[in-house]
């Protein structure tokens, strides 16, 4: 059951080689065995997962099977799942039992996929190392002294260690792609608006987007086909015909124009990582693609603009945590004001509080134009850079992250160094573009991810390019040793 693709698992279930209950139990056993060292899951509910698997087996018996029926999927703990504890990695929601399903969860339920458990994450998805979680840091299965990346670090660690066949993540500034890079698997952030945000706990609403995290591009495509679709419950959800992402996986990529932005190879990129990326690009040339030199001249402004826009939106979104209707409430208080102040002081971690304060500052009277409006203008410049670039190329490629996985604790006290982790990923969130990270090699035993960025709604094109690469290389099939 280990190391099978989602398609292979699906066929095995159909041919009754094993049942969904057996499969789910197999992965639950792996989770129970390895979670004490990896801390990839916040909540495991064996009885609930197995009950879902039993129902899925009945669906399979009655011939009502679709591709993901019976397959256990690890869900990032940012997705509300009915009757499951949903914490978002925060003390604020430590005891929150969701009263409803996020649309993403509902879609997986509808096809009979099994919820394998809720994965660890940076608190409210704010972080790049999964060290801000109230439930403790997640470890990278390639080296337990290293971080898995973040914020979807629990899902990343689970997929890399094969504790789950696949997982979900969310990506506001790189939270799917950077951990996919650091943990050596395939992750995709779709075009903004393609996957419903309903029930996905909000961080920065104009940037947040959910996506699949799995071993291969094919697996990601299959998951994306379930996750996408217009949703009335999300006012930013795109009204668009549902697409098929797997039919074109094997299309020829001869003549594909790959834009390589020079800004992705300047300051901050580790030299060994650069070599791996350059070799991957040579591989693409061998497969018939053409390299085109492009420029994204405003990329260096992406992080500054992001650290205005994302905290501004977060400060507004997180105002709901006041200790009144749900979540944590401080123990001792004399009046309502003191209750608010202490609840939020005690319920939020340091990074979350920093971002709320920054967000409040940039939106406050006298600073709005200088910061928030300025950042929105720069967002336009960054988005326009991509428009110009796509006149010359079909996909853009470069590194997903500036380095391989770094040591736990290394950047914890230095937020600015941590923010630089997303230097190659943030601009695509600002522009709303789809992007993925695929395994491209190793440096000193740690995985390196290649980033593929598509134009709006061109998920099928980047999945196709990723799949062809994966048919001709086996980087995505490597898994960490010692996780038996």
């Amino acid at each position, binding site marked *: 059951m280990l190391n099978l693709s989602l398609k292979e698992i699906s066929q095995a279930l159909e041919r009754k080689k094993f049942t969904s209950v057996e499969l789910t139990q197999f992965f639950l056993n792996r989770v129970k065995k390895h979670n004490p060292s990896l801390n990839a899951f916040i909540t495991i509910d064996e009885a609930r997962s197995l009950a879902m698997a039993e129902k899925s087996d009945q669906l399979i018996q009655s011939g009502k099977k679709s591709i993901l029926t019976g397959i256990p999927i690890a869900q990032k703990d940012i997705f509300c799942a009915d009757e499951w504890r949903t914490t978002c990695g925060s003390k604020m929601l430590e005891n929150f039992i969701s009263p409803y399903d996020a649309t993403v969860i509902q879609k997986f339920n509808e096809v009979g996929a099994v919820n394998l458990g809720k994965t660890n994450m940076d608190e409210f998805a704010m972080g790049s190392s999964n060290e801000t979680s109230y439930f403790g840091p997640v470890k990278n299965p390639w080296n337990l002294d290293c971080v898995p990346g973040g914020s979807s670090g629990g899902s990343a660690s689970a997929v890399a260690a094969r504790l789950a066949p696949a997982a979900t993540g969310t990506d506001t500034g790189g939270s799917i792609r950077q951990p996919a890079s650091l943990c050596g698997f395939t992750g995709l952030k779709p075009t903004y608006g393609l996957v419903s945000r309903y029930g996905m706990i909000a961080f920065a609403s*104009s940037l947040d987007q959910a996506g699949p995290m799995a071993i291969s591009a094919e697996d990601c495509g299959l998951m994306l086909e379930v996750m996408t679709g217009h949703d009335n419950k999300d006012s930013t959800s795109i009204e668009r015909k549902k697409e098929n992402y797997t039919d074109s996986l094997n299309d020829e990529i001869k003549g594909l124009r790959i834009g390589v932005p020079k800004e992705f190879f300047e300051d901050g990129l580790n030299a060994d990582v650069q070599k791996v990326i350059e070799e991957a690009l040579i591989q693409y040339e061998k497969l018939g693609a053409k390299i085109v030199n492009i420029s994204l001249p405003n990329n260096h402004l992406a992080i500054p603009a992001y650290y205005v826009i994302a905290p501004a939106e977060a400060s507004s979104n997180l105002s709901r945590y006041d200790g009144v209707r*749900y979540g944590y409430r401080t123990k001792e208080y004399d009046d309502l004001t003191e209750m608010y102040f202490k609840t939020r002081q005690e319920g939020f971690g340091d990074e979350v509080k920093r971002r709320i304060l920054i967000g409040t500052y940039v939106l406050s009277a006298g600073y709005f134009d200088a910061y928030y*409006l300025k950042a929105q203008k720069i*967002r336009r410049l960054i988005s326009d850079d991509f428009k110009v670039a796509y006149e010359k190329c079909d996909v853009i490629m470069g590194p997903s992250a500036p380095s391989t996985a770094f040591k736990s604790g290394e950047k914890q006290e230095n937020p600015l160094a941590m923010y630089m982790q997303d230097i190659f990923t943030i601009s695509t969130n600002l522009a709303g573009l789809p992007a993925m990270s695929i395994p491209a090699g190793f440096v000193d035993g740690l995985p390196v991810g290649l980033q593929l960025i598509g134009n709006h709604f061109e998920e099928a094109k980047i999945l196709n390019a990723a799949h062809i690469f994966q048919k001709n290389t086996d980087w995505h099939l490597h898994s960490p040793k010692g996780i038996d």
Partner: protein
Amino acid sequence: MSINKEEISKIAHLARINVSQEEADQVEKKLVGILALIEKMQEVDTDLIEPMSHALNINQRLREDNVTEKDIRGKSLPLAPHAENSLFIVPQVIE
């Protein structure tokens, strides 16, 4: 532009977050760093640029104002730190 303790205390008040005396130095140090990073934006002239609030050029949809959600009061109220008689209870606000 930078930030001092007085301004931090002002925004902490706006954000309804208590910042204790012990935390104040660290918070100041880190916020000053983040604001310096943000300051890089001022290098570019954006006078003629239209601000962009959304990644895609879409309009908000309108819908009929119908009840679509089922009643989840029974599941929601137990989540409150303090609820009685179907009401959320907070310290008395008006004498």
